[in-house]
């Protein structure tokens, strides 16, 4: 710890000096008598000074929480010295982490003893929040010297994005040959009725449709659609975001991606993630709960990385976009590169849906009349861009912060149903 004179020390010395000088100048010993206690106090404080032996640690109630959830952080302060020490404790602050109490907490730690100081933490946004080391300041018994330092190690608190329960998901056009919940186009063992065909050697008796057999005079069997899983790739656009003081489009995009990942994994789909922006990260599609935690961990590390580098489909490894995968692009549609990527993926015949995280609510119009006109022009331009993507056969769901994703996905499914023949082409 670094030691320094407490602010009161020079003042006490100055008072003592002033008293002595006044006594000499006026020839009155009474003034010197007034100065003596200050001299004794300052002298004793400076002679008896000893670095306090304070150690400690920062502990969290748990290291994974949902954003907005409260937890307790405990700072353990131990004094191994022979004298009591006054300690001020101040945890590190960030704009995205509410700490109560917000200021410093002063405690007195007895000799050879330990105390705990509890802070309430609430992450306002998803992400990894570093808690600790905490700043401390210890004072000796006379308060003439301050010792400042840091206590404990950094502990990472991972705040997961809050998720929306989705009742409807985007239905994939193609499925994979694994057991799942999507009705496949292929005909095989399943529940959903597909067609009737004449009996062939190898067909089971339970497949025979006796009514159709009686009507046609020859054995007829039922054909069914199997329930298969699909591959889903969440493509998160992190080139640019619109942000106000409280939140931005990336915050909402990550929440949307987490909701979609959970819902699709719950339907036994293989889900992968691509963080497509200034930096490129990806997770290959996989099944299960472990993949959900991998995805959420990857999502909360997302950030906007400014870059001039041009990126397109060729920047992505082939195994990240398996053939027939449903690609859900979560984007504010603000960067040329992500718009070009969407068009390129569609041209290559990918099954594509755009979830547009609207930036309009995060950006108010400028102060002048010309700015208001520009804002309106921007709104109309975005509308035209959306229409252009839909003309390419890409379903676009517009999601505004504060709203729910469900209705937007229903609209997407309606669009895809009406455009299905063209999409499959």
């Amino acid at each position, binding site marked *: 710890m670094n030691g320094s004179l407490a602010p009161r020390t020079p003042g006490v010395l100055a008072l003592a000096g002033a*008293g002595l000088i006044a006594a000499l100048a006026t020839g009155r010993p009474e003034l010197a008598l007034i100065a003596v206690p200050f001299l004794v106090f300052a002298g004793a404080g400076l002679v008896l000074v000893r670095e306090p032996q304070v150690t400690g640690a920062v502990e969290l109630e748990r290291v994974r929480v949902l954003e907005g959830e409260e937890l307790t952080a405990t700072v353990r302060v131990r004094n191994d010295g022979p004298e009591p020490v006054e300690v001020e404790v101040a945890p590190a602050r960030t704009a995205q982490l509410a700490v109560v109490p917000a200021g*410093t907490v002063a405690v007195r730690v007895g000799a050879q003893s330990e105390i705990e100081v509890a802070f309430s933490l609430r992450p306002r946004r998803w992400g990894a929040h570093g808690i600790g080391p905490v*700043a401390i300041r210890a004072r000796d018994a006379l308060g003439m010297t301050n010792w400042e330092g840091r206590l404990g190690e950094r502990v990472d608190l991972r705040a997961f994005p809050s998720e929306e329960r989705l009742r409807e998901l985007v239905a994939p056009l193609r499925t994979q040959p694994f057991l799942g919940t999507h009705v496949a186009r292929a005909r095989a063992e399943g529940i959903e009725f597909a067609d009737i065909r004449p009996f062939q050697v190898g067909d089971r008796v339970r497949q025979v449709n006796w009514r159709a057999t009686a009507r046609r005079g020859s054995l007829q069997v039922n054909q069914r659609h199997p329930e298969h899983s699909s591959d889903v790739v969440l493509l998160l656009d992190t080139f*640019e975001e619109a*942000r106000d003081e409280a939140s931005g489009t990336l915050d909402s995009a990550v929440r949307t991606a987490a909701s979609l990942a959970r819902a699709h994994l719950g339907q036994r789909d293989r889900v992968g993630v691509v963080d497509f922006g200034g930096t490129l990260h990806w997770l290959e599609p996989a099944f299960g709960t472990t993949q959900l935690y991998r995805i959420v961990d990857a999502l909360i590390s997302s950030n906007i990385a400014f870059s001039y580098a041009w990126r397109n489909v060729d920047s992505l490894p082939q195994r990240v976009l398996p053939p027939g995968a449903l690609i859900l692009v979560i984007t504010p549609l603000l960067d040329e590169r992500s718009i070009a990527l969407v068009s390129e993926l569609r041209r290559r015949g990918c099954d594509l849906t755009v979830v547009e995280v609207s*930036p309009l609510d995060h950006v108010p119009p400028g102060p002048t009349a*010309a*700015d208001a*006109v520009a804002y309106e022009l921007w709104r109309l331009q975005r509308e035209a861009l959306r229409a252009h993507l839909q003309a390419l056969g890409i379903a676009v769901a517009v999601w505004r912060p504060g709203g729910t994703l469900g209705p937007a996905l229903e609209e997407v499914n309606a669009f895809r149903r009406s455009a299905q023949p063209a999409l499959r082409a």
Partner: protein
Amino acid sequence: MTLAAEITLIVLAGVAVATCVKLLPAPRPLRRRKAVSAAPSRPQQLVTLERLVTTAGPSAVSAHAYLRPLLIQIVSHRLVARGQTLDRMAETTGREVLGDQLWDIVRPERPFPADRHGPGVQPQELGAMLEVIRRL
């Protein structure tokens, strides 16, 4: 000086010293990481358009070369929803549907401005055009 006066002086001096001790500076706050929030960011798309609206006012070239293609893109998408296209639209229909101001900007055969330094489209005029587009 009488004894009473001396005692009074000493008491007053004591009070003055006590006041000085009270007024000693408080310890400065502990140094710790500042709570820095992410700065608000305006999308480049919007900033570019704000610049375009400003420059299209005094510059006919800016209005023709940069504002016109954008307006054509927006108007075309609106007209498609009505089953019309800008390319095949007769002048009389165009003027009737889009109004004179907007039609003069987006009409297909609009020549490059003869006076490069002439006035372009003022923000108020552009606002009126956008109002027409909104009503399409």
